[in-house]
């Protein structure tokens, strides 16, 4: 079977799994997760097949695997949908398949499969643990099967998005994931915070999606197609889009569309104005966080931008100055990177730290795209997916371990608060080492980790193309990244336990640690495919395969940034410096964060995330509520609409009365009664004939018939 056809099949298994679980195997946990993981594995297998088939093709960018069918008849034409595997899609498929599979496996352990049912457990709340003869043990998730159903659907959405060859199906997958993130963040729907977070995530992303839909519509109106290759590999179209002015803010059509699409990404990938949902999304189970933040949703946003890069950057020649859209992207990306990093420094919750780091890393990618570092962005997308998934799963493992301790000791502490941890290195060695690798990758530990290469490439590009502002911001952000990463590691694993729960924490099951190990391998190795040729010493060892491969996606391949020692030094220094600083500061941290005293008010500011949530609450939420309550409901609905209706009713009623008395009663009824009485009298007269004797009737019939016969006879006889 040709790779294109195989590609069609990739998204299907999770979807089937979703329906299977929901419809049939809901009652049976083992069966459910077997189905789900099996489906994920199948998709993974297909994905790998397609990926390696793609590797085999020379100039995949020119001849990608495509296949499409006519789907939606649009009067004159038919809207085709199909699959497209070009280098970008291939690499995305690669890491998506891997992370998804790992997360599925991880979920088994995370949801305490095989543990007894908790007495107090109710659907919609996290399992509280069960009494297992005497001491308490973790209890299985009450809605175990449902969880797998949801993440299966989620996976379906992501795969659809990755393999689709046009914006529409991409958007479909996109929205499916939006729905799933809603369902999964609100998975423990009995927790008010979870509910709120779910709604928040849905609404916030919706803002972005609306704009994105506008962008899609505009694009279709402008070009008459949504197929990637028809638009992006078609210089005439791009030029036309780039040159014609849209009439808004002096943007070109391409710029406008790009901006709209980009806003969609801002929502999905939680960039600065719309980033607020992501930290709250931590209310969901940890694998969900990993799904949403690492593998799928946020990556989806960036993936879309990368995918549409030629459109966004239409009218921009490499080395030339940026278009308005790109400037916006660069600004927002860079700002978000720094901004989120600063917040991350002051978070207590282990998962929230990662959430903000995710935001900032995504900022990196956006910024990279903004300055036209196409390959670097894609590269960072891949590496980041791996090590961030690793980190989330690791944090989940940590939380799990600590929860175990909490159950064991029975003291009531938040198992996600890093200041309740510490010294877990001995308790959970596998988690520690993998987490360490992930952390170093995130903070860009030189030479070995993947994060280093990708981040370095971004910095190098930024520097090489002379965007100094971006370069500096990102550098500082990188410093902070390294800092809070080390802070996290130190607080969590090193030093002495700060709580009895932490003392009694224990290593988690292999079903959770195995994915960690696998991902950690990628977190290191994924970087080696992207080492620039012109890097000193080890530059030549491995050819910079990634660059050549992915850059094939574009029409005119961007050449790698010229090597420059300065950004390298910078990134080296920030990474190592940040790490060292973090270690030094938090080496002996107690219950109290040493930074609090150092920074003072700024710290509280950071801790409260610049009060942005509160700000939004003031600006948007409350006014909206006020308007809804006071104006729309009290005035428009009650007064205007209802009043109108009531008036109408009264009028109709009176009119009816008039009709009834003036027309219906005298005329219609009179006629009806007359007819009735006539009929009655006739009937009274005629009923004598009805003797009820069948044969008498027959006799009449025969007589009449004979009459007819006789007529003819008469004619004959005469």
């Amino acid at each position, binding site marked *: 079977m040709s790779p294109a056809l195989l590609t069609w099949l990739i998204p299907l298994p999770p979807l089937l799994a979703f329906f299977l679980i929901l419809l049939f195997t809901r009652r049976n946990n083992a069966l459910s997760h077997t189905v789900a993981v099996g489906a994920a594995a199948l998709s993974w297998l297909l994905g790998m097949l397609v990926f390696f088939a793609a590797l085999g093709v020379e100039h995949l960018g020119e001849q990608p695997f495509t296949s499409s069918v006519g789907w939606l008849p649009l009067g004159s034409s038919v809207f085709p949908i199909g699959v497209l595997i070009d280098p970008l899609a291939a690499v995305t498929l690669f890491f998506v398949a891997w992370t998804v599979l790992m997360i599925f496996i991880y979920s088994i352990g995370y949801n305490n499969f095989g543990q007894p049912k908790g007495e107090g457990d109710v659907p919609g709340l996290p399992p509280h643990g069960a009494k297992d003869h005497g001491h308490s043990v973790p209890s299985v998730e009450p809605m175990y099967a449902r969880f797998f159903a949801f993440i299966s659907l989620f996976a379906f959405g992501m795969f659809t998005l990755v393999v689709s060859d046009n914006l529409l199906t991409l958007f479909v997958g996109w929205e499916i994931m939006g729905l799933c993130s809603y369902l999964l963040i609100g998975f423990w729907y009995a927790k008010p915070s979870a509910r709120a977070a779910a709604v928040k995530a849905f609404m916030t992303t919706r803002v972005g999606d609306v704009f994105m839909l506008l962008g899609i519509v505009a694009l279709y109106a402008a070009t008459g197609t949504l197929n990637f290759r028809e638009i992006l590999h078609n210089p005439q179209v791009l030029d036309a889009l780039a040159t014609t002015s849209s009439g808004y803010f002096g943007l070109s059509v391409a710029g406008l569309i790009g901006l709209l699409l980009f806003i969609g990404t801002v929502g999905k990938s939680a960039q600065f104005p719309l980033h607020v949902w992501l930290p709250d999304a931590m209310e969901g189970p940890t694998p969900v966080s990993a799904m949403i933040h690492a593998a799928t949703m946020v990556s989806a946003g960036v993936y879309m931008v990368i995918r549409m890069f030629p459109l966004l950057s239409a009218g921009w020649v490499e080395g030339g100055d940026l278009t308005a859209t790109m400037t916006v992207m660069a600004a927002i990306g860079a700002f978000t990177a720094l901004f989120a990093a600063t917040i991350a420094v002051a978070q207590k919750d282990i998962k929230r730290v990662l959430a903000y780091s995710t935001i900032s890393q995504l900022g990196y990618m956006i910024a990279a795209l903004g300055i036209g570092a196409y390959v670097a962005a894609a590269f960072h997308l891949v590496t980041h997916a791996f090590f961030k998934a690793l980190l989330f799963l690791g944090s989940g493992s940590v939380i799990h371990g600590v929860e175990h301790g909490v159950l064991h000791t029975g003291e009531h502490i938040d198992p996600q608060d890093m200041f309740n941890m510490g010294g877990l290195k001995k308790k959970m060695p596998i988690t520690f080492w993998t987490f360490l690798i992930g952390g170093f990758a995130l903070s860009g530990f030189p030479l070995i980790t993947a994060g280093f290469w990708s981040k370095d490439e971004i910095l190098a590009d930024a520097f090489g193309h002379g965007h100094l502002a971006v370069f500096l911001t990102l550098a500082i952000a990188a410093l902070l990244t390294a800092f809070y990463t080390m802070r996290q590691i130190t607080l969590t694993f090193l030093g002495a336990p700060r709580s009895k729960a932490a003392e009694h924490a224990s290593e988690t099951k292999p079903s959770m640690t195995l994915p960690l190990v696998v991902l950690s391998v990628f977190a290191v190795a994924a970087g080696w495919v992207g080492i620039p040729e012109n890097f000193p010493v080890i530059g030549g060892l491995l050819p910079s395969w990634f660059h050549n491969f992915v850059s094939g996606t574009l029409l005119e391949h961007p050449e790698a940034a010229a090597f420059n020692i300065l950004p390298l030094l910078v990134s080296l220094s920030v990474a190592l410096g940040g790490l060292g600083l973090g270690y030094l500061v938090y080496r002996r941290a107690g219950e109290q964060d040493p930074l609090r005293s150092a920074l003072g008010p700024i710290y509280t500011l950071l801790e409260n995330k610049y009060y942005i949530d509160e700000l939004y609450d003031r600006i948007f939420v409350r006014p909206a509520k006020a308007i809804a309550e006071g104006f729309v409901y009290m005035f428009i609905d009650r007064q205007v609409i209802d009043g109108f209706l009531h008036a109408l009713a009264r009028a109709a009623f009176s009119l009816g009365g008039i009709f009834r008395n003036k027309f219906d009663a005298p005329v219609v009824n009179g006629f009806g009664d007359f007819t009735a009485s006539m009929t009655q009298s006739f009937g009274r007269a005629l009923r004598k004939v009805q003797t009820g004797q069948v*044969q*008498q009737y027959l006799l009449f019939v*025969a007589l009449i018939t*004979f009459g007819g*016969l*006789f007529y003819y*006879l008469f004619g004959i006889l005469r």
Partner: protein
Amino acid sequence: MTPIQVVFLFTAALILWAAFMMVTRQNLVHAALYLIVALFGVAVIFVLLEAGFLAVIQVLVYIGAIAILMIFAVMLTRGDVSHESESVNRGFGWAALLAALFCFGLIILLGQSPAINTPAPALAVDRDTVFELGRALVSPDAYVIPFEVASVLLLAALIGALVVARPHIKEKSKQR
């Protein structure tokens, strides 16, 4: 006077005699048996008319099913006193008169028709009228619609008969 004509006359006489007996007998079972005789005679007539298929169907449907059912019904309704009492109703004189009129009227009328003297064309020896009839009954340019309608009619009659003759639900529940 060819033998075939003899056969015909004999059969016709048999039929009419049987019909007469049927309508005059008081004993319904006898009447039914005479009916059977008449029907059988009709079958013979069909044979004489070289409609063998119809003859067989005549025997199968009329004698095999209808007449038997008649007798069955007669036996089921045996408790009825009207078997012994007068078998004809008051208006039977009118009925007889009308019937006679009909008979003569029909004969005269038919006798007047020009086609009355056309001799029977000889059927081709190798002609399979059964096959043709089957084709006619199911070929769309002939009788497929009436055929289907007839089948629906039979189905309706079947169900209707069941519903009508079935003891009422109340009685059933009483039996339980």
